[in-house]
């Protein structure tokens, strides 16, 4: 399914890159004096799953936060449907169909599951019941716990809630920051399955992961970040085959 955003109406005639949804051009981001992102170019096409890989502190989270407007780049442009969106605050960007599932889940712990999902639909006048049903079908565990306080859910359940909450915003582009972190293998599998499912239903996904094997298995394309810059990029299969990747991120050379 596709969501209608205000942006689509306005950006009707943008020519060149019909299928490009998101584009980063020479983006540089600073924390105070520290440059965390040192000029990144990145493209996400409509309907894709793109994986963003890299070690600790490579700048993956920072990239996502820049896209969703939590951070502002000091140089470069962020474009959605070929329109600049850098400089727009995160709460406004939600209206453009970008939803971000932050690192570490960050559910509203003193709200119930249901209230958390309602928060996800904050930008609409009232939450869409059908959407909520869809989320509950995707995550039956949440359905069981709809009136439990989110803070008392287990890690996996919280991750599901965080994703469900983002889906309530009917995203065109879903940003996922390490959805598998701290989750049991079985749950990781489930989450990845769900991501695939969501993508099939029409949502474009930008996925940040440490878990390179699984992420690349899921994604169409991947980017590898190293200390704030793109070190490698290409279709998943290519990346998976690359020996450098296998050594550095799949732990093979040493194993």
């Amino acid at each position: 399914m596709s969501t209608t955003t205000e942006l689509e109406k306005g950006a009707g005639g943008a020519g060149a890159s019909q299928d490009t949804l998101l584009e980063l051009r020479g983006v540089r981001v600073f924390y105070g004096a520290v440059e965390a992102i040192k000029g990144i170019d990145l493209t996400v096409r409509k309907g894709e799953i793109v994986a963003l890989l890299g070690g600790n502190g490579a700048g993956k989270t920072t990239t996502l936060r820049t896209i969703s407007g939590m951070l502002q780049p000091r140089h470069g442009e962020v474009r959605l449907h070929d329109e600049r969106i850098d400089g727009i605050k995160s709460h406004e960007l939600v209206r453009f169909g970008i939803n971000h599932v932050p690192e570490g889940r960050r559910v509203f712990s003193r709200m119930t599951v249901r209230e958390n999902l309602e928060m996800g639909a904050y930008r609409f006048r009232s939450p869409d019941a059908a959407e909520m049903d869809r989320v509950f079908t995707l995550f039956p565990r949440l359905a069981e716990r709809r009136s439990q306080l989110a803070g008392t859910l287990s890690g996996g359940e919280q991750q599901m809630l965080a994703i469900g909450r983002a889906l309530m915003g009917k995203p065109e582009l879903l940003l996922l920051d390490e959805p598998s972190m701290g989750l049991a293998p079985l749950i990781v599998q489930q989450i990845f399955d769900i991501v695939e499912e969501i993508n099939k239903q029409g949502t474009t996904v930008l996925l940040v992961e440490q878990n390179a094997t699984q992420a690349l298995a899921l994604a169409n394309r991947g980017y590898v970040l190293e200390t704030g810059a793109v070190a490698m990029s290409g279709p998943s299969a290519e990346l998976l085959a690359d020996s450098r990747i296998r050594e550095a991120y799949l732990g093979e050379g040493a194993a």
Partner: protein
Amino acid sequence: MSLVEFWDYLVLGVVLGSIYAVIAIGYTLVYGVLQLINFAHSEVFMLGAYGGLIALTVVAPGDSPSGLASAGFVVLGLVAGAAFGALTAYGLEKVAYRPLRRRGAPRLIFLITAIGASFFLYNLAGKLFGRDPLPMPSAYENKKVLSVFGADLNVTQLLLLASAVVMMVGLDMVVNRTKLGSGIRAVSQDAEVAGLMGVDIDKVVSRTFVIGGLLGGAAGFLYGTFTQVKFDMGFIPGITAFAAAVVGGIGNIRGAMLGGLMLGVVETLTVPIFGGEWRHVGAFVVLIAVLMFRPTGILGERVGRTA
């Protein structure tokens, strides 16, 4: 103390307590979104009283206005008080707290800023309007209207009770039923993520202050009619209301109401039993006792309804 007398004091206590409750809500709301003990809220309250005073002085009710005019004056006073309070709270947030928030300053810094703002504001009020107390121009004849189990209630007291109840019910509805309410609750738990959901944090924080200011200012006007208006009038009710917010469970709106009523009653009952000089001791002993047994207050910390 006879039963009738007990009722008498209880009624007084409830009246005082309902003012505390309305002020306490201001503390609790702000605490909810910023985890800040907004010491300057007592000045919001004080300026609310001046707002009412100014409005009534300008409009100048005659000696004993008729019923309908009285109602008009009361509404005017309330509105002016609320407006002054809201304006003060809004300004405080914008000038003093927002820069700190932007910078992610530690909470202690907020606290000292609040204290500084409080000093500034009440002395500024003293400078602007003089440091002597002023009686609130009487907008109505303060007659006895009815008696409950032998306890008399006069117009002021009824007015206080009624407005307090209306304000509390209204607020409860705003927080639990409206979008702003869920915004407030979300920001209070994780402001950054609330932003990701489309909540405009600045707006929500600002509006929270404004709501707290509206209530605080209106309470200031009511308290002013009840006692008198003075530049340092905010301090004692402020501290007591803050204690009330904590007793109820800070961050919890219903807790603030409960705490306010409780401290009002305790304080008032202390007077006939132990003597007027001990009234605040009563309130603070209750505070400490409650916290000993319920470390997060009677209703616990939570903004909004329980799950």
